[in-house]
């Protein structure tokens, strides 16, 4: 199993370093081939909204920067993990910058999924998606929106499996670890 973790935390926010280590430990135990990318360290431009990756250089963004490496790795992966502080219920801007540049993974053409219009997938292989969000304070509205966002992304990416895991400040890391492990087992079943 090939896994890519897109880390959308700022380095100054060290609160999730322990959780990140726990994730890597679990993935190592399973012997899954894991690459974790600290997005803050990488030079990634904003998506220009030009659709060049659909109509000019299909499948490839017209901007050449580190995002090219991310997409190359991602399309060959079985699982993508979004690791982010929950920001108004969604992803951090650091993570979202990398996500916006991944629309080359789909085709411009429309299709219907669950009665709703989405884009056709470019590649046959699609990635399972786990969204791991950190909440500083309990907030049910943010939790629900975050879960919905991960679900919506899984629809657009035709993910065979999706799950949102929320880690709250002060929560026992072991609890997270168990939940993450269970989720990985479920990913393995569908892959």
């Amino acid at each position, binding site marked *: 199993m090939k896994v890519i973790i897109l880390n959308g935390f700022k380095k100054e926010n060290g609160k999730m370093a322990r959780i990140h280590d726990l994730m890597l430990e679990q993935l190592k135990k399973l012997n899954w081939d894991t690459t974790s990318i600290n997005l803050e360290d990488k030079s990634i431009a904003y998506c220009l909204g030009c659709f060049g990756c659909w*109509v000019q250089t299909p499948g490839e963004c017209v901007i050449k920067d580190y995002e090219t490496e991310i997409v190359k790795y991602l399309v060959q992966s079985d699982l993508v993990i979004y690791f982010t502080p929950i920001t*108004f219920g*969604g992803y*951090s801007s650091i993570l979202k910058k990398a996500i916006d540049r991944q629309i080359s993974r789909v085709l411009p053409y429309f299709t219907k999924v669950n009665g709703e*219009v989405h884009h056709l997938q470019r590649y046959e292989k699609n990635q399972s998606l786990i969204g791991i969000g950190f909440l500083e304070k309990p907030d049910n509205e943010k939790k629900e929106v975050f879960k919905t966002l991960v679900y919506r992304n899984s629809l657009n990416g035709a993910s065979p499996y999706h799950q949102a895991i929320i880690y709250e400040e002060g929560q026992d890391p072991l609890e997270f670890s168990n939940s993450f492990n269970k989720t990985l087992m479920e990913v393995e079943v569908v892959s």
Partner: protein
Amino acid sequence: MNKDENILLLVGSPKNSSSTSASLGDYLTLRLEELGRSIEKEYIYKLIRKDEGQKKILSMVDNADLIILAFPLYVDCLPAGVIETLELIANHRKSLNNPKKIGFVVLINCGFPEAEQNNTAIAICKIFAREVGFEWKGALSLGMGGAIGAIPLEERGGMVRNLKKGYNLAAQALAEGKYIPEEAIELVAKRFIPITLYTKIGNLSWNKQAKRFGARKIIEAKPYI
């Protein structure tokens, strides 16, 4: 809302003035100008990359009584530059003693035919408003944004009559300091054309655009496998 209050339009499309978000924002703010309100307009993607631009955004936000944020849906939520702007505003507001109440309106559009696909992004904007102490005035949510194609609504003919009606109602309500009425929200969310027609035209248009770049035959390329 008094006539001397400031309205700030923030356009959150990376395409800046050549965007559907700008067309929508311009239409609403023109109506507000006709109702005697003064408007400031800025393009987020022209400012957010640099410290100086970020300072300008914050100064304009501090000066505003009503902020209208217009942006396109990007992968089920807000474009990264818009999220970065909201993060910036939130951090700034935390540093202020007793920050003033500012009204907040969202104009969102997506390329999918269903306006409902914007709901998660709207929920994120609402939480942002709650967190920074802005007063949520409502969101106008539009599907089939591709059909506007960055052209002023006045030049889009009968297709956008409900959209314009909805925006006119919203402008009137905002000028009176009220929330965006439900009727306006419903009018804006109405589909211009049937879904099957929209997707058919959309698919043909992608082929046409790819042909212009000599990429029609490789439009389904899989470069990374």
